[in-house]
């Protein structure tokens, strides 16, 4: 950077004016800064639970830190800010905002065809690394975009919830559909044993071939059906793929009645399945025709004929089969359609007989009794309906037909619309919708569950109830195993609980990554609900039920849960208490959380800040200190830990930040260690929105709305104030141990800016909406997660490039404004990224997306690029046609301004006609910088030209 080293003359400053990065020289004699920044130092008010703070530190006012240079720079910045509005226009006229300086990019893109050659020639300009796509989302995901085979990558956080799991015949294994694969877990330990991989789209159905005799219990075969239209037959003990049947249409549900009804004669060549498919031909046309089809499918023939369609619905429905294999059915709005399976599964011509049961509410779930003709159905209001003796008329089997006919004209209590059932009774306990219904294997009990997260066991004859309360999340599936003492319940928070049966105790939990909580409005966008332990690869995630889940990203396994707030979670209730932020210290030994209790009608409400100390042996945390109302009423916006000492800072919307220190080092045992307030600071009463410690911990940067204040954290002295951005800063991060500071602001004008803290000036900035920032501890690399604007993504040329991905991870190196690598990702909204630095000094980047799926990869690895050539092609196309403008004022300073470009293109006409020599004079070495006179002349010419064109 051509910065004059002489402190007496102000150096040229790279400033941010409006949306543009410009170069400007402040006046030779800078004005004294306006009234020194008023820094109010409040007396150190003790928080409610803490002993009074130990020391009072005074704050030197403003930026006179003794450095003359600093003084002048600060002054320059201030002047620059003062004139920003004028300069805004200037810049537009200059055309600096145009993609004038896109030459670097253009060169790069021109050489796209011969990338390698170009790379050698223009190595310093072109991206050193190209991109591959780390789409950390699987549903629905084009097959080409799946880099799951990459060696360096760890993907995880997959949902366990897409379809019901299933126990193996010996009840020692639990098969769970996890995205494209089926994972096999041990029921005894809850750990994953193996997985069945082969499907290229999410697996929707999993059928374990049941054992008819005790000897067959060791058999472990299963059928899977997937949205990729494949039906596969597996030996999951192996695991080994035995057979593949191509149905050619996405299968949403599949049942094979003969597996249940005649298990002895199971011959995989003669099986008949009933499948629920989505007719792809109709989907494409976008018509309102009935897309969901229930069809009969002969697994031997490998053909799905339309003639076998039993029912057409708007959406593909899931098929429910009776445990005896005699009936199957689907629910359709307020109706249940039931078919009887024609006996003698082999006969091709037998057509399933159909009947319908009606209800007045939308039915959410239903189940067949294992032996008798009983159907239980649950509706959206929480009622459970029991139809007894259904289908005596319509689905009667040949021999029974006549005897049943005689009872037809009897009064059937509770049965609607002359449905074919003897009686219908209603049980009402659930207050919200019923999602789970299942009969026990002997048919004596009915299990029901719903959004309240309570499993209810009904005794079928008497209607007596037993409960398993406080599961804490809506229930999705309940399945029992061949072993009578074991069953399993699947919850919406990605947990599979294994229940010890007669007592209904949760004996073990297979814990997937929990979904993110919904935050109150104020905290949205500040998403610090995910924190990373960089050394061990553990992520701490805030969850809905007032917990912090510790999740090992490298093993894809939940470790433990820390109950932050001692309350039971009632799923579905209004949000009244929420854990808004979690932060981990660099060594992972201290965790800090904040929770908010929202007031009811102005009554109550509480913000508390908690510090937790880790217990190394069982990888969990114990509460060390609670601070009630750390910043009076105001909410905590960010927490940051000191890199080396036990010190933390919390910032609040109320306009102050507090530095907390742990007093454990004072000849006290570990148990007594507590965190106390060390200092309070504020800057012009502005809301503080973000904070970061520098790599060595000597400087604390706190964002006061739209300026960055730098403090000495020990003495609580304001060191200096960095020039203002236009919008409130939401993220701050120091780049490694270098002097660069990354700041991101989102609303209303997104911006990513990098500041040089030693020169107190802006290095460069982009107009990017940033979701998360992370920087490596040792190297000067940092990465940002940016949201790609919708308007940009939707434009036709790029639609196929982004394919639903809405974000990009950009990897930067130090002060270099050119990203080293770019990856596009899905569901970036609410996502977060972090570097993971294991002991092998291997740098890895973890990305957790908005729905808590994640990917861990090596950002410097080369084979990833080679392996995903297709994605690379696609993205290069995007860069070429897109308007990521990289421009460089002095060969280094870029400007990225997408929106501005759009505007400029529409307004470009008057400018195009005129000659603009100033466009070229800037693009060169500093030595060739034109004299001011020349600049002025050109500039005023352009002004006149502009006014002319406007008048005309």
């Amino acid at each position: 950077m051509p910065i004059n080293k002489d402190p007496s003359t102000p150096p040229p400053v790279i400033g941010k004016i409006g949306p543009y990065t410009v170069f400007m020289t402040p006046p030779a004699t800078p004005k004294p800064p306006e009234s020194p920044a008023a820094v109010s130092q409040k007396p150190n008010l003790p928080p409610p639970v803490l002993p009074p703070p130990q020391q009072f530190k005074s704050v030197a006012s403003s930026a006179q830190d003794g450095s003359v240079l600093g003084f002048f720079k600060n002054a320059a910045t201030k002047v620059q800010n003062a004139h920003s509005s004028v300069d805004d226009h200037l810049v537009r006229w200059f055309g600096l905002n145009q993609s004038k300086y896109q030459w670097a990019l253009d060169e790069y893109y021109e050489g796209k065809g011969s990338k390698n050659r170009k790379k050698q020639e223009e190595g310093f300009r072109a991206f050193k690394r190209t991109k591959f796509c780390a789409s950390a989302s699987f549903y629905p995901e084009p097959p080409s975009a799946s880099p799951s085979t990459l060696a360096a990558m760890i993907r995880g956080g997959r949902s366990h919830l897409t379809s019901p799991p299933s126990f193996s015949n010996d009840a020692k294994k639990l098969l769970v559909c996890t995205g494209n694969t089926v994972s096999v877990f041990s029921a005894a330990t809850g750990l994953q044993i193996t997985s069945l991989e082969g499907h290229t789209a999410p697996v929707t159905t999993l059928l374990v071939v049941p054992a008819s005799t005790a000897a067959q219990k060791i058999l472990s075969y299963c059928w899977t059906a997937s949205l990729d239209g494949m039906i596969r037959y597996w030996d999951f003990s192996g695991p080994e793929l035995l057979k593949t049947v191509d149905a050619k249409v996405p299968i949403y549900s599949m049942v094979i009645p003969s597996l249940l009804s005649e298990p002895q004669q199971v011959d995989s060549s003669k099986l008949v399945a009933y499948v629920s498919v989505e007719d792809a031909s109709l989907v494409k046309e976008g018509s309102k025709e009935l897309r969901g089809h229930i069809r009969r499918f002969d697994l031997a023939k490998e053909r799905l004929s339309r003639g076998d369609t039993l029912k057409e619905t708007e959406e593909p429905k899931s098929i429910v089969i009776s445990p005896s294999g005699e009936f199957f059915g689907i629910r359709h709005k307020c109706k249940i359609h039931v078919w009887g399976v024609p006996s003698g599964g082999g006969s091709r011509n037998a057509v399933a007989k159909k009947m319908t049961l009606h209800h007045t509410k939308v039915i959410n779930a239903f189940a067949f009794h294992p032996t008798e003709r009983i159907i239980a159905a649950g509706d959206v209001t929480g009622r459970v309906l029991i139809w007894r003796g259904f289908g005596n008329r319509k689905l009667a089997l040949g021999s029974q037909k006549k005897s049943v006919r005689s009872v037809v004209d009897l009064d059937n209590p509770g049965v609607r619309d002359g449905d074919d059932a003897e009686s219908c009774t209603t049980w009402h306990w659930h207050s919200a919708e019923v999602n789970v219904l299942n009969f026990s294997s002997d048919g004596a009990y009915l299990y029901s569950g719903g959004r309240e997260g309570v499993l209810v066991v009904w005794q079928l004859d008497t209607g007596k109830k037993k409960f398993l309360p406080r599961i804490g999340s809506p229930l999705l599936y309940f399945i029992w195993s061949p072993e009578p003492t074991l069953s399993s319940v699947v919850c919406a928070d990605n947990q599979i609980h294994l229940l010890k049966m007669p007592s209904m105790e949760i004996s073990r939990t297979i814990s997937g990554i929990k979904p993110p909580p919904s935050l109150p409005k104020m905290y949205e966008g500040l998403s610090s609900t995910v924190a990373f332990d960089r050394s061990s690869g553990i992520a701490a995630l805030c969850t809905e039920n007032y917990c912090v889940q510790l999740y090992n990203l490298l093993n894809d396994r939940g470790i433990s849960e820390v109950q932050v707030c001692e309350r039971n979670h009632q799923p579905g209730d209004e949000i009244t208490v929420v854990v808004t932020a979690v932060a981990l210290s660099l060594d992972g030994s201290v965790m800090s959380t904040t929770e908010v209790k929202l007031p009811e009608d102005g009554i109550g409400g509480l913000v508390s800040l908690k510090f937790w100390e880790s217990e190394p042996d069982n990888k969990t945390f114990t509460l060390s200190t609670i601070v009630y109302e750390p910043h009076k009423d105001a909410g905590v916006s960010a927490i940051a830990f000191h890199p080396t000492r036990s010190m933390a800072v919390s910032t609040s919307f109320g306009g102050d930040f507090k530095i907390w220190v742990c007093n454990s080092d004072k000849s006290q045992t570990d148990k007594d260690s507590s965190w106390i307030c060390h200092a309070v600071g504020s800057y012009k009463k502005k809301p503080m929105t973000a904070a970061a410690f520098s790599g060595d911990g000597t400087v604390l940067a706190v964002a006061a709305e739209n300026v960055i204040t730098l403090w000495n954290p020990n003495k609580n002295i304001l060191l200096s104030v960095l020039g203002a951005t236009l919008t409130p800063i939401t993220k701050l991060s120091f780049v490694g141990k270098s002097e660069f500071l990354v700041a991101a602001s989102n609303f209303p004008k997104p911006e990513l800016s990098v500041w040089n803290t030693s020169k107190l000036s802006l290095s460069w900035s982009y107009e990017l909406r940033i979701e998360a920032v992370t920087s490596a501890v040792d190297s000067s690399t940092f990465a940002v997660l940016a949201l790609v604007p919708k308007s940009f993504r939707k434009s036709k040329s790029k639609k196929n490039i982004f394919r639903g991905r809405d974000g990009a991870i950009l990897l930067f190196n130090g002060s270099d404004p050119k990203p080293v690598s770019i990856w596009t990702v899905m569901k970036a909204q609410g996502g977060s990224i972090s570097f993971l630095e294991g002991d092998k000094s291997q740098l890895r980047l973890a990305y957790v997306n908005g729905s808590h799926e994640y990917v861990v990869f090596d950002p410097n690895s080369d084979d990833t690029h080679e392996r995903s050539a297709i994605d690379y092609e696609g993205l290069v196309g995007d860069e070429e046609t897109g308007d990521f403008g990289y421009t460089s004022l002095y060969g280094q300073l870029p400007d990225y301004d997408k929106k501005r470009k759009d505007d400029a293109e529409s307004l470009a006409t008057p400018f195009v006609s005129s000659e603009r020599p100033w466009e070229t004079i800037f693009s060169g070495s500093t030595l060739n910088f034109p004299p001011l006179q020349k600049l002025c002349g050109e500039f005023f010419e352009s002004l006149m030209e502009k006014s002319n064109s406007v008048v005309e």
Partner: protein
Amino acid sequence: MEEELRVRLNDHQPSKIFPVKPKSTPKTLSKPETPDSRYWSSFKPHSIPNLVSSISAVAFSPIPPHSFAVAHSTTVSLFSSNTLTTSRRFSFKDVVSSVSFRSDGALLAASDLSGTVQVFDVKERMALRSLRSHKAAARFVKYPVHDKLHLVSGGDDGVVKYWDVAGGTVISDLIGHKDYVRCGDCSPVNDSMFATGSYDHTIKVWDARVGNSKWIAEINHGAPVEDIVYLPSGGMIATAGLNSVKVWDLIGGGRMVCSMESHNKTVTCLSVGRMGLEGENRIVSCSLDGYMKVFDYGRGKVTYSMRFPAPLMSVGISPDSSVRVVGGSNGMVFAGKKKKKARDEEEKKKASVMSFWSVKSEVDESRRRALRPSYFRYFQRGQSEKPSKDDYLVKESKGVKLTRHDKLLKKFRHKEALVSVLEEKKPADVVAVMEELVARRKIVKCVSNLEEGELGLLLGFLQRYCTVERYSKLLMALTKKVLETRGEEINGKEEFKGILRNLKREVNQEIKIQQSLLEIQGVIAPLMRIAGR
């Protein structure tokens, strides 16, 4: 991996029932308790009022049960140290200045301001001897530690007299002090050695065997000497003058060992106390500033300090360290007795030392311990047994203990829970329940459903606690809500009138306090600002 597996196998689901808990309150940042503070605060306070005038002197009998004499005005009262009640009184013609027991505890000598020194039998009312020789007020009288025949006394005439009690004659007049002699003490190792302190700032050590009436050592305290005490070793003395206490090494030629100046006013009396039977010795000083301080002269540190509501004139510690007596200038005697348990422990310790020697007691012990099925204790045996190191402990999982309001909350009977906790009169619990109701979005509904009596209960609670700082944020908002929603019902009722009036007064008072605090802040803030620069 294996380790992780093991951890997972062992973990069991934590209880998911969370009783409502009040907010935790800050721990006091008190220093960890030292043995000294534990010992000196273990005296159970017991004050004896009704004595006229100031308590000029306290003396303990060297013989168990260590009864003590308290000199106040013209009377010396004899107290039993077990019951701390007065058993006998001795009257004088003038104000008593000092009192001392003979080594066998049978005789008691006391001096008064008329210059007379009188010797009493503790069992009789009349004086056995009346020693008149001082020409001015006598200030101290002391029996030597073992000697039963002689007395030492000093007075405002500046003369120290060594008496033969039996004959009632002065053996020697020790002249040397240039001002009032105020205090003195006899050496615990040598019966003929004693030290006296005077207002001429000096301490003089005398030996009765030296006939020429010449002191054998002199120490200058630097201030009028108020009290002097020999330390048990006999080689050191502690002196009090003005607000300082100094410890001198006599054998080392009168060198000052250490000094303590943490009193704010004149130190009036010194005493040596032992911490327990085998404990170290401490100097206990009391002063006109109302503090009694315990000084560890070995480390030169004040280890304990206690404040009394009156200027203190005298202090005494019983030889068995079980009673501490402090006399105030307003006639109050602040006696303190070692708590029973602490004393028992010591006795037991003593007993165990004894039983080491006596076989008989050991036998008794074992017989007492043997349990037979006829004893009730037989059936309880083992209940308080502590596990030994290699025992395998089977832990029973404890259920969560739920209070009444917790049970009601569990059943979603919110209003009843609120009422039940209001009846319990634990404000922290009430606020915790209210917070839980807020989190459940039920507090407004609860308020509107309260019946009349329950509303009175709630209003009473609000009136009492709504200005308490810890609860005020929630309670003020709630008070407002209650008054809004239940306004018309509250208005009409006679029984709510008083509560409302009190509420209004409380709030007004609080506002006044806040305003004055703001004023103070206004004064302080600029100062802080200046100090900050």
